[in-house]
């Protein structure tokens, strides 16, 4: 793979962090190292993980997608509305919801890659507006009364393994194949590495860039559906600051903010670090306010690690 030196340093450092964290929480709490808690962590991180695969594509192109938290909210509300008020069966409702999420990605992608507005601004704008739209659509009230069968997606098990975890692993597997073995995946890396060289190689860079945002939108949509199924109500405030968790996980996983380097397997590690950290803090009864401080510091740590690795390389 992309086994350059600085990446390796990052990769091992991050694996070390995962092991240290797990070790620490195993010692200080009784409940951390139990099968049910580990399953629980996996289920909790599944939505983060699914969205992180999309975010990985975006950050690899040297972009950023701040809108994922709001996409999750809009998916929550639209999905809930379609299944309740519109009375659509689960499957078509889910498909329509996913299409909406992908369209948000398309809009982001077109504005960024074709029009040339900075990714930070475009996705900040969609983040704010979509959150507003989510509140408008449900008039600020939660939506109740989702069909019971829909619970399976987020709450069901296949054997001992929660369905969201299985979905996440499938998404990671497809993500790996996509990024490593398809031309679009490789151009996504190339775009972050040297956009001009890729363009001169006859590749429509704007299209590749847009695809990355569509993937991010679509996968966040999928994560949003799982979330809807788990809480079983449409909540307009769901997914607040979700984007920061996703970005933290991706960058912790060794994807460079400058684009062009990082691996999907590293991201899986990053996702679990984020998950273990919040699970451990909950087990330790640390207040939510302190958790937030910790999250900010972890984000800073992840980006610093990335920056230092890049500095060393130059």
């Amino acid at each position, binding site marked *: 793979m*992309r*086994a*350059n030196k600085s990446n390796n340093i990052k990769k091992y450092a991050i694996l070390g962090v995962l092991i240290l964290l797990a070790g620490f929480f195993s010692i200080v709490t009784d409940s951390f190292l139990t099968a049910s808690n580990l399953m629980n962590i996996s289920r909790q991180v599944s939505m983060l993980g699914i969205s992180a695969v999309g975010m990985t594509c975006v950050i690899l192109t040297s972009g950023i997608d701040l809108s994922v938290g709001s996409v999750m909210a809009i998916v929550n509300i639209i999905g809930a509305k379609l299944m309740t008020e519109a009375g659509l069966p689960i499957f078509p409702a889910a498909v329509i919801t996913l299409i909406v999420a992908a369209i948000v990605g398309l809009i982001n992608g077109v504005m960024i890659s074709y029009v040339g507005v900075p990714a930070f601004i475009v996705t900040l704008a969609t983040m704010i507006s979509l959150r507003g739209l989510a509140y408008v659509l449900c008039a600020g009230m939660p939506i109740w009364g989702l069909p019971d069968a829909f619970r399976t997606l987020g709450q069901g098990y296949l054997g001992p393994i929660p369905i969201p975890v299985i979905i996440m692993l499938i998404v990671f597997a497809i993500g790996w*194949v996509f990024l490593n*073995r*398809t*031309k*679009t995946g*490789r*151009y996504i*890396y*190339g775009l972050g*590495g*040297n956009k*001009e*060289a*890729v*363009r*001169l*190689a*006859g*590749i*429509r860079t704007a299209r590749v860039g847009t695809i990355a945002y569509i993937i991010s939108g679509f996968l966040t949509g999928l994560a949003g559906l799982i979330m809807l199924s788990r809480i079983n109500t449409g909540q307009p405030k769901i997914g607040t600051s979700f984007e920061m968790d996703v970005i933290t996980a991706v960058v912790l996983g060794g994807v460079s903010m400058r684009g*062009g*380097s990082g691996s999907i397997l590293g991201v899986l590690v990053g996702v679990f670090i984020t998950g273990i950290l919040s699970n451990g803090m909950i087990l330790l009864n640390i207040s939510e306010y302190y958790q937030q401080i910790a999250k900010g510091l972890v984000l800073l740590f992840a980006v610093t690690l990335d920056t230092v690795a890049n500095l060393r390389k130059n």
Partner: protein
Amino acid sequence: MMAEFLIEMRQISKQFPGVRALRDVDFSIKKGEIVCLLGENGAGKSTLMKILTGVYKQDCGSIYYEGEEIHLTGPRDAYERGINIIFQEFNLCSNLSAMENLFLGNENRTKEGFFSFTQTRKKAKELFEKLHIDIEPDIKVSQLNVARQQMVEIAKALAYDTKVLIMDEPTSALTSKEITTLFSIMRTLKERGVAIIFISHKLEEVLEVTDRIVVLRDGENCGNVITSDATKNQLVSLMVGREIHNFFTKRTQAPSDEILLEVKGICGNKIKKASFNIKKGEIVGFAGLVGSGRSALARLIIGAEKKSEGTILMDGKELIIRHPKDAIAAGIAYLPEDRKNMGLVLPMTVRENTTMCIHRKLQRLFGLISNKDEYDITDHYIDELKIKVFSREQIVETLSGGNQQKIVIAKALAVTPRLLILCEPTRGIDVGAKAEVHNIIATLADQDISIIVVSSELQEIFNLADRILVMHEGAITADIPIGEANQEVVMKAAIGAV
């Protein structure tokens, strides 16, 4: 008593993981001396200079400055002692004016502590005048061409009290006229007692401007000659360790009479109604000064920039090219002049770069890229172009300039082009690799591929081309068959004096 040498480096050795970069290298320079540091890429020139400028620390050996031993603590230390380097890539803030760049980090301030424009402007003028450089202090650096940016860079080095100036391939982006100007600036500096270390691959220039030549090979000293006693062949053999009698291979086959591509009156950014044609198996060289529009024309042809007018015909049929992908689909491959910024994705592997243009063709079931085909193609070019890599999975960033350039060539060849447009195909690569690249180009033309070579090195064009087109201010001013071409005719057309 004054020491004989301003700088003396004795028995310098440096080891990197897996490679011995320098072994007991001696290097010295006097005040007011211009010394060329010569060697193939990877000979250890940059490592030696990085030690002198405090970027690396030597494992063994010592550095004497005016006879006294010094221990450089870092680049800042070297800079403060007056050891200054000008890199191939400039370190200027293009959004600032020339004078602001000159005194960056060393600003002239008014009594109140504000930036003083008057004083800065005055000092900048003085500095430029001293060097006989004609640049307006207030002009933005982005508005200057490469040659003038370089002059600003030189002036910037001298704004601080520079005693040793290292110039890393300063002429690689300049035209012959600009090189003459650069040399006269270098001579002015020499008179003022500045010691100049000149790193270049162009032997003609080295012989013209330097006093002494120090040759490195594989990290060791292998020659120290007074320039007036040196000959080109001698230097080449010192560098490569063997005599090269025939620098460049000649063609075995004459181009056909059939026209492959016809460009009719195309206009665009910097280009005014350019028309020309190229025959199958022909090598057409584009000569001209920097900024004359040669590479801009190439970019118009391949669709990297939009043309406002004109048509391109291939085999007599019109070609619609709106994007580089259309050019590639038509069998036109392009090698950009700047391999690092335009040619390669540096953090990606040899394999991924080589097949960059042809991923579509490598797709199999479900759009997956065929590993086997990709490996075969990469291995084929590594073998055919003699690219030195550990494996096809090596990151191209870690390769030498010559090998990187071969990867860009491999990438273009993988398209199986009918027309190959090469911009500065040998810029910044060493003599051995250059001869190899020229051989490759000649072989390709013998296989009936038409080739356009844009080069700032006239020698290169004379060596390769069947026909020379000369550009001046965006127009083609001369079309000269190689038999009738000489330096004078080409230069006249290049400066618009026809």
